[in-house]
Every structure is written in structure tokens, then in C-alpha cells.
């Protein structure tokens, strides 16, 4: 079966992007100037990168029982959201393992939008539909009709502002607003996966190409999955399949801050409480290499001459000038400050470092 294409596929090919299969889609991993330049556009002081992340899923949840339903299936406290507010959250299974990490948008008391990972979309929708049956709530998968762009970097607002009919400056961090871009309705949310100021823009497919080209014309630099992975790893943000999976609970993943045990019952709550009481089976830590080398997924983490864990994500950080990694280690080893990462036949010394590895510049 061939890969699916986002509405911007031909644009990426025309720009000379190297396309790779990702989560069932043909996606740009980088454009001809290379991932480091794209990274630089996002981290720079007067530029911004533009990502096509239309492969991600969007699920609408509506109805008088939408809030109660979402409280049951998500970990974060949905009742804390006001209209126009977003929260990072997760779907857990009965064992407290991750089904997915998501963001929850409240449009109105009875209308919400969930943004989910591309690789988990079908699984998430099936899970949501199954559990929605107990509530006065309808679940609609809108992914195929929705284009999602991420405009990230110091120049994001200046680039976007003339193209929309509202004022993006009025949108606070983890807030969103309905606006129009290129003559089409859109949702502009001040969120992202890079640690820079920026926006994620949800728009109908029919406006995708016009909006993409308009943003590039205003100076946004097209950026692909390779740069995206460098940026999120530098921030210590989890990626499903790496830091989070069905095999870990929020206790291990350090995501108890989005797991509101006091909000009432939710799927996985009992399991999380048990795990919290027993202590995590492993602990997610950040590591910075003290000598040259690049840590990568799967490399062993060593301490006291033994393997105590494994790297889940790792990159060379251009800003830090060294390798940085996220890794799961045993709870005993998690007490230490000094480790080594096995890279081929070398044990590269690494120190414990709490992410983010670079300074966050999201709006406060």
C-alpha cells in the first residue's frame, strides 16, 4: 500500500525535499539546504521555520456530555479549560500505559478538538468512540479534512500577522483563536513542539497551498522532520514510541504534571496510583555528553561499569555544541549524576542534565 500524502506533498517535492515514509504518510525529512539550516531558522533571533504536520490527527468531540467524557478518557483536568484554551494531555489504557499523548482544545463547553499523533490516530479514534458510547458525546475524525502547519521561531508572529484577520499578539501561550487566513477559516494556536514562540495553524485543505506559499513568501523557511526531532529533543519533549508507549505510565515518563489524580476517576487512574505507590520501574532522565559523540536511540546507558538503561532519543545539539539525550534508567541508577553512553566501542562520559537542554523562548 502506498503512503498517504498531505495536501502539500507536491509543494515539498517541488522544493526539492527528501521525502520519507512516516506514520503511513510521505513526509519531508529535510529540504535542500539541510536540517541544520532549518533548525537554525527556528532557533534564530529573526527567523522562523514552517512545518507541514498535516499527518497528525484531529478529532472533534461534541455534545452535552463532552466534558464528562473527556474527563474520563484523558489524564489532565479538562474542567480547568476556558473557551480558547489548550492543554497537553494523554490517553491511558486500564494499566496506566500510554495510548497517546495529545492536546485538548476547548472551543465551547460542549465542543472540543483533540490533536493526536499520526501513528496513533486510528487507535485513538477507536478508543474514543468505544468510550463515548456511555456519554452524550459524538466523536468525529476530522484528520483527513484538516491541514496543520507549525510556524515556529522568533519571527513567527511578524510573519503571520499580516496574513490573518485577527491579531496573533492577543493569543497567549496555550491559547487559540478562530481567524481567517487566505480567505479560509482557521484556528491559530500559540503552541508548538520546539520551545520557541510560534503558532500551530489548523485550516481546511482547500486553503493549504495558498497559506503555505504565503507564509514562505513572508520569509518562513520550510523545515522537515529531521529538524523537528532535533528541536523537540533539545526541549526534552516526549515522542510516542520513544519516551512514551504502552509500556510506561506517566510515573516513569515524568508526566505526572498532566495527570490530575484529584480530578475524579479516569481510565488508568487506579493503575497510576498503584504505580506511584510502588515506585516507577524505570526513570526518564536527561543526559549531556561531556565528550564528542552523538547519542542515539537504543544506545546503552552505563554506570558503575554496568548497563543501567537505554537512550530513547538523542541528538547533537548545535546550540549546546554537544550530544544530548533522553534515556530510561533503573530507579537506583537515577540517583546518580554521572553516566556514560555506549557509542560503538566507546563509553562517552555523560552528566545528568534536566531538560530543556536549551532555553525555552515560548511566551509566558
Amino acid at each position, binding site marked *: 500500500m502506498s503512503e498517504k500524502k498531505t495536501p502539500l506533498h507536491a509543494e515539498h517535492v517541488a522544493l526539492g525535499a527528501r521525502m520519507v515514509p512516516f506514520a503511513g504518510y510521505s513526509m519531508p525529512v529535510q529540504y535542500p539546504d539541510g536540517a*541544520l539550516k532549518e533548525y537554525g531558522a527556528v532557533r534564530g533571533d529573526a527567523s522562523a521555520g514552517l512545518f507541514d504536520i498535516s499527518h497528525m490527527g484531529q478529532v472533534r468531540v461534541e455534545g452535552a456530555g463532552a466534558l464528562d467524557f473527556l474527563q474520563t478518557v484523558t489524564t489532565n483536568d479538562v474542567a480547568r479549560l476556558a473557551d480558547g484554551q489548550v492543554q497537553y494531555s494523554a490517553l491511558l489504557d486500564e494499566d496506566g500505559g500510554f495510548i497517546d499523548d495529545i492536546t485538548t482544545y476547548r472551543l465551547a463547553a460542549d465542543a472540543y478538538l483533540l490533536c493526536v499523533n499520526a501513528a496513533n490516530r486510528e487507535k485513538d479514534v477507536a478508543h474514543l468512540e468505544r468510550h463515548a458510547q456511555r456519554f452524550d458525546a459524538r466523536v468525529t475524525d476530522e484528520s483527513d479534512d484538516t491541514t496543520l502547519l507549525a510556524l515556529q521561531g522568533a519571527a513567527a508572529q511578524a510573519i503571520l500577522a499580516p496574513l490573518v484577520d485577527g491579531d496573533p499578539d492577543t493569543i497567549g501561550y496555550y491559547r487559540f483563536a478562530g481567524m481567517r487566513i487566505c480567505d479560509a477559516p482557521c484556528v491559530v494556536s500559540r503552541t508548538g513542539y520546539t520551545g520557541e514562540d510560534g503558532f500551530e495553524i489548523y485550516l481546511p485543505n482547500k486553503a493549504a497551498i495558498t497559506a503555505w506559499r504565503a507564509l514562505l513568501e513572508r520569509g518562513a523557511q520550510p523545515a522537515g522532520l529531521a529538524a523537528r526531532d532535533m528541536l523537540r529533543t533539545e526541549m526534552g519533549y516526549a515522542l510516542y514510541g520513544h519516551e512514551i508507549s504502552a509500556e510506561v505510565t506517566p510515573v516513569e515518563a515524568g508526566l505526572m504534571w498532566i495527570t490530575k489524580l484529584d480530578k475524579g476517576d479516569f481510565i488508568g487512574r487506579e493503575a497510576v496510583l498503584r504505580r506511584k505507590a510502588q515506585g516507577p520501574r524505570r526513570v526518564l532522565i536527561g543526559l549531556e555528553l561531556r565528550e564528542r559523540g552523538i547519542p542515539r536511540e537504543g544506545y546503552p546507558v552505563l554506570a558503575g561499569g554496568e548497563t543501567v538503561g537505554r537512550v530513547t532519543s538523542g541528538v547533537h545539539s548545535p546550540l549546546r555544541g554537544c550530544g544530548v539525550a533522553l534515556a530510561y534508567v533503573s530507579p537506583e541508577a537515577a540517583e546518580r549524576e554521572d553516566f556514560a553512553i555506549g557509542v560503538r566501542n566507546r563509553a562517552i562520559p555523560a552528566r545528568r542534565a534536566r531538560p530543556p537542554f536549551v532555553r525555552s523562548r515560548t511566551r509566558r
Partner: protein
Amino acid sequence: MTIPADLQYTKEHEWVRIEDGVATVGITDHAQEALGDIVFVELPEVGREVGPGEAFAVVESVKAVSDVYAPVGGEIIEVNEALEAGPEKVNTDPYGEGWLVKVRMSGETVELLDEAAYATFLEE
């Protein structure tokens, strides 16, 4: 896509310049382009003996780790230390400043292609 006429090439996308029994080795323009931005190069110790076709260095890009194979057998007599601070030289000047090692040849080599044969190989 540059393929200088005065060099020889391998099917693993290394180039070699042989002068007076010493081979200078690097990776080709095709290889550096396929790898993307190179962020780390691991070179062997001077003095190490390598056999033809043996993996002797590693070139790492943002997304990938790639072994480099010795086109010729012999002793590593010099490595390009400038790549430690400037790994991107392999991208910007793969046949010049991006050279990896120099080998005093023992006489054995892998199959070496001339420029025309390498160009044909790339088209396959």
C-alpha cells in the same frame, strides 16, 4: 554531482588519490549529499593497520550513522584532525578539505573504479 577525473572510486562511495604509495581517502560528493549535514566524524588512530574493505571510520549525519570502508589496505599515517571542529567540511569540500585519512599502502585494494565507471555505477 562532482566526480573528479584524477581520482579512483569504490562501490561504497569512497574516493582515493594515490601518490607514491600513499592513498588519501574520503567520501564522494554523492555520499555526502545522501547523508545530509554531517555533524560528527570518528577517525581511526594513526598507526592502525586496515585491510581493504574494512570499516575504519564513521561519518554521522543528523539522522544517520554511516561506516566508511578502506579502499586500500595499509597503515593509517595521518588523519584529518580539522574534521573534529569542522565536520561540515566533508559536505562542503568532500574531495579537498573533507579528506579523512592517509594510508601507506600495503598493495592490496578493493575493486577501484575510474571516474567513468563510478558515474555509470551511480546511474544503476
